[in-house]
């Protein structure tokens, strides 16, 4: 990006025409600006990224201490444990998705723009996934190894988590948008979106289990992909509607 130097003494007034009010289309941030802004904010709030990851790793590290170190038992439970923890970690980070924007008024500014809210919501969700779901998926083979997950399960675990957490972020955005006006949404948010998380969990663990049992896991992945496609098309729309309702009161 070219950065123009700003000469304070001689500001470039050529573009300024204060003659009259014109009917220019209003400035709206483009999708790239939205993405970059969200990413900058996410990187500056590092604790929001690190906390869910830390939770994910710590709880999984505790598991063998709690349920015993027998390799066979751990291997049987590994996929389910990792998936449930990924689900909870995503849920934990979801609450703050729209909160900051709601409190500082920028959500209201977005809602006032003539362009649909779909893209700003999508940008937020994409960044949320990049900083929570994606690192979880990248870490998962390591944790699989720790829990004695069979080698055949690493790849399906990673792919199913990458696809699945993206769906989770999208679905969770609807819940976060519905509860953004509430002061302490905690349990309500979980109640709203947990049932919607269930299909993703079933097919995610199903894929890993099938791979471990030596079967193909294509169908489960296809269903996870289909869930993701449907969620990407519909969830931001639902979240946008929910934001407009939340802003009314």
């Amino acid at each position, binding site marked *: 990006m070219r950065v123009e130097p700003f000469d304070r003494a001689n500001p*470039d007034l050529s573009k300024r025409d204060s003659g009259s*009010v*014109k009917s220019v289309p*209003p400035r709206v941030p483009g999708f790239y*600006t939205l993405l970059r802004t969200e990413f900058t904010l996410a990187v*500056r709030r590092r604790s929001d990224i690190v906390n869910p990851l830390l939770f994910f790793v710590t709880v999984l590290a505790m598991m063998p201490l709690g349920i015993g170190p027998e390799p066979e038992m751990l291997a049987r439970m590994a996929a389910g444990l990792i998936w449930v923890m990924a689900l909870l970690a995503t849920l934990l980070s979801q609450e703050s998705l729209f909160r900051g924007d709601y409190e500082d008024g920028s959500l*209201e*500014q977005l809602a006032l723009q003539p362009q649909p809210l779909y893209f700003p919501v999508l940008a937020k969700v994409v960044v949320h996934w990049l900083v929570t779901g994606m690192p979880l998926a990248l870490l998962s083979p390591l944790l699989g190894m720790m829990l004695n997950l069979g080698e055949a399960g690493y790849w399906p675990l990673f792919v199913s988590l990458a696809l699945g957490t993206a769906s989770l972020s999208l679905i969770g955005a609807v819940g976060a948008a519905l509860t953004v006006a509430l002061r302490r949404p905690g349990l309500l948010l979980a109640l709203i979106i947990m049932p919607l998380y269930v299909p993703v969990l079933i097919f995610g663990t199903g894929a890993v289990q099938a791979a471990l049992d030596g079967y193909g896991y294509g169908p489960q992945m296809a269903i996870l992909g289909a869930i993701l496609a449907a969620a990407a098309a519909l969830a931001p729309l639902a979240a946008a509607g929910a934001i407009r309702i939340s802003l009314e009161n």
Partner: protein
Amino acid sequence: MSAQPDTATNTVRELTLCVSGLSCERDGRVLFEGLEFTLNTGAALQIVGANGAGKSTLIRTLIGTASDYTGDILWQGAPFPKSLPELRTSLLYIGHNAGVRRGLTPLENLAWYGASRSDAMMALDAVGLYGFEDVLCQQLSAGQNRRVALARLYLPDPAPLWILDEPLAALDVAGVASLETQMRDHLQRGGSVLLTSHQPVDVAPLEKLNLADFQPCPEENLEQAYAS
């Protein structure tokens, strides 16, 4: 000064926001009823009223985020909510929560509103934030944050209709004077301003609208209650 509009894209638009018989309710309490006013091109309207009189609710009704009202709101002669999208394309709204992200710098905040770097620098210089453009807004004071929000008014080609909720809050004397100058310029360009404020605003032509004049009379309500 050659301020005549020339080409088709540069035409000065006549603005009219007309409100008649507007009543707003919040949590079952009528805030005001029978509210009437018209805001025309080149005019400013200051809404005054005690805390809780319904200033912010009125503003939220006008920008369409609150829809709990009876009465008519007309933008360019067309009724709400049909004309709402059109109003929003000519609207620059700064609310009580000013839409400044604390985790961004003033420059990044203005970029989020679609301003180019040089425009944003000029606007920040105009609000006295030159030198603070790369400081995170959470490290700036309340007044400085307010100035970041108000810098949007100094960007070139601003939207014609300004709706400002408490723009003078937390501003110092010099900031208020600068904002008043900017609003006067905007009115001269053919824009209009609707603002709420508890302080006197030195802008002409300025109309004042006191929400207290439109409050449902409490005594009457009592009498009605006794009669029934």
